C-alpha cells in the first residue's frame, strides 16, 4: 500500500527476531539503517507542507 501511494516500500521493514537473538537484531537494524541512508530523507514532510500552502492560496 505504501508503494501504491508513492512511498518506497523499503522504508518499512517488519522482521521477526527472537529475544534470544541479539546479534540478528543488531544485524537487521544496521542493515535497515544502511538502506535508509541510501534512500535519503523522505520527501513526505516537505511535500505535505507545500501542498498545505497551495491549498491556502487557492481554496477549492
Amino acid at each position: 500500500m505504501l508503494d501504491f501511494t508513492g512511498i518506497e516500500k523499503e522504508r518499512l521493514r517488519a522482521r521477526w527476531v527472537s529475544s534470544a537473538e541479539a546479534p540478528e537484531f543488531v544485524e537487521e537494524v544496521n542493515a535497515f539503517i544502511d538502506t535508509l541512508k541510501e534512500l535519503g530523507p523522505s520527501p513526505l514532510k516537505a511535500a505535505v507542507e507545500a501542498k498545505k500552502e497551495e491549498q491556502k492560496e487557492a481554496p477549492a
Partner: protein
Amino acid sequence: MIETIKQHVAGLLTEKKIAGFLGLIEKNGHVAPHLFKDGESLAGFTLGDRKTAGDARYPLNKTLVTLSRAYPEETFGVLVRGCDERGLYGLFRLNQLTEDRVIPVGFSCPAELSEACECRKPYPDSLVAGEKTESSQLKKVAEMDGKDLARRFDFWTAQFVKCVKCYGCRDVCPMCFCKECSLECEDLVAKGDLPVEVPVFHLTRAMHMADRCVDCGLCDEACPSDIPLRLLYKKTAQIMDTDYGFTSGLNKNERSPLSQMGPAK
C-alpha cells in the same frame, strides 16, 4: 423491475415471513431508508435510482444492524444490490447479523453502473429482479500502478492533504461497526490537527478495511473533499485477492485469511 420487487416484498409481508422490509422511500423529493411494515402500502418505494442508476444509495445494512440489535428475535427483509449483499455476507462472518434473521431481496445493477464501479459482482445471489450483469475489470488501479513512484506520491499526497477529518467515510461505511475506532484513539491520531498525518491516517483505515471492505463505494461518494478512497481500498482488495485468494463478501461462509493461523494458501 421495481414492480417485481414490490410484489415479492408484499408477499413476504403478508405471509408474515418478515416483521418489516428495510428499503428506500422517496418522500418530499428525497430518498431515505424506510421500514415498510405489513398492511402499509409500498407507495413511494424506490430502488435509489433518480437521474441515473444507483445515484441515491444508502447504507441499509448499517440501519439493519441497528434494527436487529433492537429487535433480535425478529426477521427483517432488506433491499440489496450486489455490493450490499457482499456486505451482508461480511456482517454474517463478523457476527454482526444472524443469517436466518435476514431475508435479502436483491436486484442487479445495469451494465453502465457496474462499469463505473468496476464491480466484481454487480448482482446479488438472492436475485429477485434483473439479469446477472457482467462483472467489470479493475482499470483505475492498473492505471495508477502504471505511473511511476514520484507521480503516485504526488497524487496521493495531494489527495490526503485535502482530508478535513470529518469521519464521513467511516460513518457511512456499512462494514465499520467497532465500538472503539483506532482513528479516534488520541494516542494514534492527534485531536484537532489538520491536515491528518499523511499517509498514516488513510492507510490505517485502508488496513483495517482490508478483509472487510466490500467495495460499495459509499465512502467515496460521502467524502466532501473528493478523495478517491474507493481506489485506495480497491488496491487493498486486489492485494488480498492476489496474495490470499480472498475477496470480502464474494462468497457466503468464507473466512478471512487475516483471522486464521497457518501459512497463506
